[in-house]
């Protein structure tokens, strides 16, 4: 019996999809709770929990955030914070609990929307099923459905936007405008990308929809005008940039990279679509651009992952249907591919349960919460900023660069401090930024100093300079108090 020999029972498949996806996506947080105790996955979760709690405490969006960058205007994308805060007030669940549940629900909805969208594109049932399963098991999707971040909503809105856009009706347009317009409220960067994506799609694949696209485009312009007028100009370089230029592959240790096997399979999908001229132009133009951008902006990886998963699904079916000379090799190859995708996913889920914050880091954060006052500033690598803020302390820098005050100067000064070989420079930095504590964890220590000589630079002074005293130390984290 062939892979596509029976007609797909949509409602039954959707039901299975809901059950399977909710179970799959709930596993990382459940496992994490079981293995590492209470705690959220990823640093972003701590940012949004803190901000949502901040909003709940103030009963409105405040104007100023006292902690991030030692104080900055409250210019965060409001969508996810609003969702967490309002649902907390409505349902009564804690924000931490919501931060674990909501991504799973949105993840499940994303899976269903992708299924519906692919149905609209008239792919074969077998291609849709394999694409959806590959997407569900892909590392970037599991990641965004396990952390408390607006990424999963943005992906859902993008898929829904395209889904409604594909209908040739007014209600379709309205719903599409609604979905697309919400995106910038969750993530500003994605707004730009989706807008570009939509235009490329319309220009290459379906020019009849150009008018509709222009309507959406004008709504986008309105929204961005709002952001520019009320929040200030948007500088693209202020978005969080990946420090290391390495292509994000999950198997190569990327926090949420694309699966290598998915990528290989997608090549077979691309080959299959090679003969469809318009699709070919669209994909051949889009994929390199998105891949290039996702090396710089890791947040785009989940978007690339959609394309890769769909192509991989097509590729898998293509391989299945290909004429094989040896049935033995055919069977073994397909089994190997299925095992690869599942194993890659399982290995990733296991890794996800142990990625930051580790138990040691949480202990360090708890220690910070207990000591000193709320005006104290803790210096650390910017990737630890959200944890410092969560502990109720100010940071010098964190990963939310957009609209951050003088972030380039702060990052520059921080780097000089990390690599300082001079006491005068250290004293100046401490004075300029009123540093009360210095925090290192194992990862940032290795990231900053790597294979460099650790007997120089800041670590040397932390051990030998009398102004620093080690007040907390475990296998992961060390905290020094700075004396005047």
């Amino acid at each position, binding site marked *: 019996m062939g892979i596509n020999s029976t007609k797909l029972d949509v409602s039954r498949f959707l039901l299975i999809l809901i059950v399977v996806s909710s179970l799959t996506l709930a596993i990382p947080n459940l496992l994490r709770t079981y293995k590492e105790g209470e705690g959220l996955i990823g640093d972003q979760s701590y940012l949004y929990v803190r901000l949502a709690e901040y909003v709940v405490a103030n009963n409105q969006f405040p104007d100023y955030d006292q902690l991030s960058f030692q104080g900055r205007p409250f210019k965060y994308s409001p969508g996810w914070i609003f969702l967490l805060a309002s649902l907390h007030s409505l349902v009564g669940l804690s924000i931490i609990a919501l931060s674990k549940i909501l991504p799973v629900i949105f993840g499940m909805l994303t899976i269903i929307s992708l299924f519906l969208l692919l149905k609209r594109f008239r792919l074969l049932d077998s291609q849709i099923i394999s694409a959806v399963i590959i997407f569900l098991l892909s590392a970037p999707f599991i990641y965004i459905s396990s952390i408390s971040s607006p990424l999963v909503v943005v992906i859902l809105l993008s898929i829904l936007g395209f889904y409604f856009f594909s209908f040739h009706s007014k209600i379709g347009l309205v719903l599409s405008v609604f979905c697309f317009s919400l995106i910038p409220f969750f993530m500003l960067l994605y707004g730009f990308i989706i807008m570009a994506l939509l235009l490329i799609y319309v220009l290459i694949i379906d020019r009849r929809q150009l008018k509709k696209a222009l309507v959406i485009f004008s709504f986008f312009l309105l929204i961005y005008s709002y952001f520019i007028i009320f929040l200030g100009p948007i500088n693209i370089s202020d978005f969080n940039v990946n420090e290391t230029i390495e292509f994000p592959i999950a198997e190569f240790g990327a926090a949420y990279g694309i699966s290598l*096997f998915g990528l290989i399979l997608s090549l077979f999908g691309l080959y299959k679509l090679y003969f469809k001229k318009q699709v070919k132009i669209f994909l051949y133009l889009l994929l390199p651009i998105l891949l290039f951008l996702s090396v710089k902006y890791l947040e785009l990886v989940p978007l690339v992952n959609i394309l890769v998963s769909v192509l991989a699904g097509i590729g898998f079916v293509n391989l299945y249907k290909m004429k094989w000379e*040896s049935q*033995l*090799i055919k069977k073994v*190859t397909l089994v190997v*591919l299925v095992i690869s995708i599942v194993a890659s996913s399982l290995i990733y889920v296991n890794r996800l349960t142990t990625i930051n914050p580790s138990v040691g880091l949480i202990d360090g954060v708890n220690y910070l919460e207990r000591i000193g006052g709320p005006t104290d500033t803790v210096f650390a690598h910017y990737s630890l900023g959200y944890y410092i803020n969560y502990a109720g302390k100010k940071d010098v820098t964190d990963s939310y660069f957009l609209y951050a005050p003088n972030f380039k100067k702060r990052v520059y000064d921080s780097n000089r401090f990390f690599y300082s070989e001079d006491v005068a420079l250290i004293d100046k930095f401490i004075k300029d930024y009123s540093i009360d504590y210095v925090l290192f964890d194992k990862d940032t220590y290795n990231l900053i100093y790597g*294979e460099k000589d650790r*007997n120089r630079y800041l670590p040397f002074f932390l051990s030998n300079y009398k102004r620093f005293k080690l007040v907390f130390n475990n296998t992961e984290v060390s905290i020094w108090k700075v004396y005047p």
Partner: protein
Amino acid sequence: MKFKLEYILIFIILIANLSFRLFFVNSSEYLSSDFAYFHLRNLETIQSTGKLGFDELSYGGRALIYPTFYYYFLAFFTFFWKASVVLKMIPEILISILPIIIFLIVKLIVKNPYISLLCSILASFIPIIVEKTLNQGSIYSIALPLIFLMFYSFLYALRNKEKVYWFVILSFILPFIHPSAFVFVVSMIFYSILLISESMPFKGLKREMILYSSFILILIQFMIYNKAFSEYGINFIYGRLPAELVISNVYTFSDVLTNIGVAPLIFGTIGIYLGMFRYRKNSVFLFTSVILSIILLLTLKIIDFYIAMMFIGLSLCILSGIAIKQFFIYLDVTKLYRFRNLLVIFIVSIAVLSISPTFNVAYNLVDHTISKEEVDIIQKMGVRIDDNSPVFADVDEGHYITYFAVRKNIADNYYLLAPNSKERLNDVANVYNSWSRALALNILKKYGVRYIYLSERTRLKYNIEDLKYVEDENCFAEIEKLGGNKFYEIRC
């Protein structure tokens, strides 16, 4: 039952090769490289615990990831012999099978048993293979025959489609043996590219086998090394070799010549030319792809030079068969046909003469094997050290310390997942080279070292007579000396 002459001859080659190896293996009580003792420790660990995990002695304690299939295979023989004997004997038997595989491959390509025999003689005595596998318990003793057996099964399956299951099984086993299985994948990718670019048929079983083997090799390698991959990313392929070691060495043509040998290099190169441009043979494309992929990996510094030379050497031996065959075909249509026998003798003489450097390599290897004096002094110190402090020794002697003294070392030459390997390597070099007592003490204190080992080979390596700061006897006391090897105790 009548035996064919070719089988008798290949059996003689096998015995000659094995005898050659066993002669040198038995000329020393010990294994001929520091890394061999890494294998021996692992084998003994597998024997006693059944698995490898955390090595408490290497680098003062480090996670250990190494293919275990080889050790499980060897562990079977430890039911009959001591682990050290197993590690001396079994790998030699395994690598002695390699000429038979080369014989089968060449025979498949040129369909002439005598030319195949000549190529298998060349393959038996490639200097670099002897240098890297003789009396060292090297994992390449099993990896090389298996990889070339894969190539054979690939070519064989193309001719006998019903025998494809051998290829299926070998593709499954190979990645468990050694990460160098990725050479096969890269070669297959190159092979596909070459076939497509030369408008050669690339379809059917050939394409299917390439797809299958690439997928399964990548999958299994990822499953085995997922921890290392997630920690180092793509850099894992370098085995986290410190950058200096990756890029510092520059190799010349004479290195290639001495490592591969003159005969395979000349005949093999002619074989590539003839096979690629004159006769467009499928199998030539395959082994040319092996050479090209190795050159690429070497250029990208992904593969060690000596390992690269092993693969290139063997591929050239196979391709030599084509050159020799074409030479005799050409000879038959010329007036020189009268001297055919003379020329056969000449070519066989070249092949046999090309073996002679291999003897030098083998003698040299045995000469540099760890001596009884060295072993005695290291063992003596192992007994003397009464605490958990590590012994400071050169990286190339780190495994001697962990095996013979059963003490921690500061660094050794297995870098994968080694903590701060670059820093440690620098520190080791600084302690042996430095004039500054303060600098040396600072480094030694960092690791909590109480004893420094200075061997004859370390003195040669760093070109020093002694440590330059040991005149202060209150601080550095020579507590053991045997021959040119000594131990210092740090007392300040």
